[in-house]
């Protein structure tokens, strides 16, 4: 009976559905300058908020002695009173690698202010961290068994204690319990057992109620996206979201532009990922939750839709949808819109390090040898060569960035839109920079190219690969790089977008991740 009760309790706390926010890639990867120090940071966010995030920071500029971190909201009320900073601990065998933890007590758009101090002086950089509860945890079987055992023991003990109280508690010293006391004790024990079981049943209902309420209230869910297609015009509507509505006073309502656009819409043909369209719908002038886009020519097929938006707090949402697109007869691509074509993704398509671009040019993935591991920071470096095989010198910013990369898992459970600065949204980075008084994005981008990270960095936990070269918004050379870590093992397709001679070029690569 009691076991059944406890099993019922546990069954009510099944793992919550996989979170769709940012589509399966919740950790933050970042590179930037804190004064004279070029830092690379990884922040592993907790699955539940309030929770504790783990932060790792590496400097490839020698001389860094101390790193202090302060978590606070990017803007609004939670940004006015920063808590005292925490000191990160240097690694025993690498004085340029620091790690520690930060407490995130509520979901929202956070920044981690990292204050770096050392031989070259001091500097600060603000790293945006979107924090949101992703899942509750099922109770481990061993813990459940231990608690069940204790429950049985405690109930039995309580029954026995009340029985002893009735049998002997009122007797004078030395007096022995008689039949009346023993009979009474049996009745009291039966009543105690019945009351305790009833209390446990009520507790079961309460536990289930509290757990369900916690899950519904805390677990992040992106707004649902309504899409309709009339002719070549696609209409999109962002539905009301309870999670966002409960957090209206923390800037979870209005949208702000992220490198020039309120929405970045990605259409990926499923299941082969052989077509990608990166579009920018326009906001309806009368309804800020509605967008329209005059579609260009789009290949017929079933598409996965990923729509990126950024709230006024800097919090990013990625909404997902599936649609079938019939033959369209739209015009050519306009503005910042772009498209890409590639061979279908297969389990065996990983390994090619050269992707063809237009005009005989190529994009080369300068990949480090060895297997690709999940859950660790990697540097993805790509070089563009012209038809003659020489590195190009004419790359241009694409929407203000040296490049954009989309990492998509073969089962579409992961979608991450990455920039040279990392996995954070550029709008959030600008807000955080302004809030903290650290170098704004443009200034950061003009700093000299960081030197390459030495090989010892590759051995550090969570840090692998070589440091990026070039800056984030202006391609300094033929190379563009992105700091990112795959959240789990599997097959991924990577779309790398750069701009050359006024045309967006997309290199497509596949990766097998262990």
């Amino acid at each position, binding site marked *: 009976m009691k076991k059944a009760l406890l099993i019922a309790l546990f069954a009510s*706390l099944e793992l919550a559905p996989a979170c769709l926010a940012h589509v399966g890639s919740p950790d933050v990867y970042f590179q930037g300058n804190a004064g004279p120090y070029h830092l690379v940071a990884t922040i592993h966010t907790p699955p*539940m908020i*309030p*929770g504790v995030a783990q932060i790792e920071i590496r400097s490839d500029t020698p001389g860094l002695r101390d790193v202090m971190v302060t*978590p*606070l*909201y990017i803007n609004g*009320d*939670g*940004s*006015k*009173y*920063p*808590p*005292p900073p925490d000191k990160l601990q240097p690694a025993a065998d690498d004085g340029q690698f620091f790690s520690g933890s930060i*407490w995130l*007590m*509520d979901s*929202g758009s*956070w920044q981690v202010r990292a204050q770096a101090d050392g031989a070259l002086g001091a500097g600060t950089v603000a790293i945006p961290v979107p924090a949101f509860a992703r899942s*509750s*945890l*099922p*109770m*481990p079987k061993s*813990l459940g068994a*231990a*608690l069940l055992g*204790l429950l049985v*023991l*405690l109930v039995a*003990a*309580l029954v*026995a*204690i009340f029985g*002893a*109280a009735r*049998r*002997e*508690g*009122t*007797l*004078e*010293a*030395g*007096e*022995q*319990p*008689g*039949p*009346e*006391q023993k009979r009474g004790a049996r009745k009291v024990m039966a009543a105690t057992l019945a009351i305790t079981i009833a209390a446990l049943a009520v*507790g079961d209902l*309460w536990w289930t109620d*509290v*757990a369900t309420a*916690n*899950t519904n209230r*805390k677990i992040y869910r992106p707004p649902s996206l309504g899409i309709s297609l009339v002719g070549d015009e696609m209409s999109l509507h962002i539905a009301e979201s309870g999670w966002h509505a409960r957090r209206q*006073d923390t800037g979870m309502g209005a949208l702000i532009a992220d490198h020039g656009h309120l929405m970045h819409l990605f259409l990926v043909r499923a299941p082969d990922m052989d077509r990608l369209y990166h579009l920018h719908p326009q906001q309806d002038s009368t309804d800020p939750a509605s967008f329209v886009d005059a579609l260009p020519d789009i290949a017929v097929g079933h598409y996965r839709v990923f729509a990126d938006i950024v709230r006024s707090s800097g919090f990013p949402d990625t909404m997902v949808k599936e649609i079938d697109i019939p033959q369209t007869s739209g015009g050519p691509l306009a503005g910042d819109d772009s498209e890409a074509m590639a061979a279908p993704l297969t389990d065996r398509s990983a390994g090619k390090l050269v992707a063809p671009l237009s005009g005989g040019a190529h994009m080369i993935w300068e990949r480090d040898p060895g297997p690709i591991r999940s859950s660790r920071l990697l540097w993805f470096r790509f070089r563009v060569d012209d038809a003659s095989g020489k590195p190009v010198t004419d790359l241009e910013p694409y929407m203000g960035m040296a490049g954009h990369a989309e990492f998509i898992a073969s089962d579409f459970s992961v979608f991450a839109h990455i920039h040279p600065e990392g996995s954070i949204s550029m709008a959030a980075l600008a807000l955080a920079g302004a809030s903290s008084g650290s170098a704004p994005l443009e200034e950061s981008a003009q700093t000299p190219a960081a030197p390459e990270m030495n090989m010892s960095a590759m051995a550090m936990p969570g840090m692998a690969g070589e440091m990026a070269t070039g800056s984030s918004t202006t391609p300094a050379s033929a190379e563009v790089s992105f700091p990112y870590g795959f959240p789990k093992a599997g097959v991924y397709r990577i779309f790398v977008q750069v701009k050359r001679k006024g045309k967006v070029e997309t290199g497509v690569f596949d990766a097998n991740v262990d």
Partner: protein
Amino acid sequence: MAQSIPLDITSRAESAGIASRAAAVPWQVWSGATAVTSITFGLYWDISWHMTIGRDTFWTPAHLAIQFGGLLAAVTCIYLIFSTTFATDPALRDASVRVWGFRGPLGAFFTAWGGVLMLTSVPFDNWWHASFGLDVQILSPPHFVLGTGINGVVLGATLMVVSAMNGADGIAKEKLVRLLLYLAGLQLVIHMMLLYEYSDASMMHSALFYRVMTIGVPLILIAFGRASGHRWGSTIIAAVYTAWMCAGLWIFPLFPASPKLGPVLTNVTFMLPLGFPILLVAPAALLDFAFQRTSGRGRWFQAAIAGTIFLAGLISVHWPFADFLISPLARNRIFGQNDLPYFFPPSRYYLICEFRRLDPTRFARLSGFSIAWMSAIVSSRIGIVIADALKRLRR
């Protein structure tokens, strides 16, 4: 029918020893009272810590105070149970109860049970944090388990006082009565801290507040107030609670402190207290008065009168007092109505100056107060049953 055991000369001498011991307050009573005081203080401090500083570890001073209390109670009870079970002195065994082959004072078994339950709550609470987030809720299921365990420890300590008190006389009895009322006052403090989230001034014009107040408060006041035999037992218990809460309200803010995690939505510069006490002294005094006037009547009649007069007294005092608490006059160091935790958003500051509309309709309010009335009567009746049992307790 209870059997009487003929006593030989040795037994008479041992009985004389027991009698002389009964004249003094037993050491385990002082130990239990110290443990309960430490736990109560630790709980108050812990809630203040969560409201002010936020960052929580197993080793915060507040947790250490709770753990010290639990450890002291556990060591006391383990010693009592083992020394009684394996004692060669039959007098000790004769004044004990038997549970699963072990012998000891009844209170020791309750305290041991409460201690094991407190320990059980630790892995449960850790899993709860990992699953649903770090502490932001006082009355969560694992905290309820912890609270039940603490109540077990406190009840055990109280039972040891009661059994000693029932066998004592003279000055020792007076001391034990005072100790009982003090421990019952702390039990009320613990109970009210568990209800802290439901005792905000903005809720005091709603039926929910009175429903919450009538669930356990009359039970504690009546059970221990009547068991003490003191004419004004319930009043003194409520006074102990009031004094404790006032001391916290006026002393804690003397210590500077600030949040150590974010987001800090409200600036905090000192240890926050847990607010002005609920005015329980008035309905408690009415309870004592009612029992003095209905002492010869049936138990259900007494409970009906007690429950009714408790609720009526609470409403008649607290309804107008809530108007004061919600006014600017109470936003000062005396009444502490502007002491807001660091996680309190400015968008909800209105809650310190207006009442929440928790009863959407007249029917909802009427049914809410009806439930509170029934709850007060049932709680009073259970309190009377417990008081009668406590009066008979000898071991």
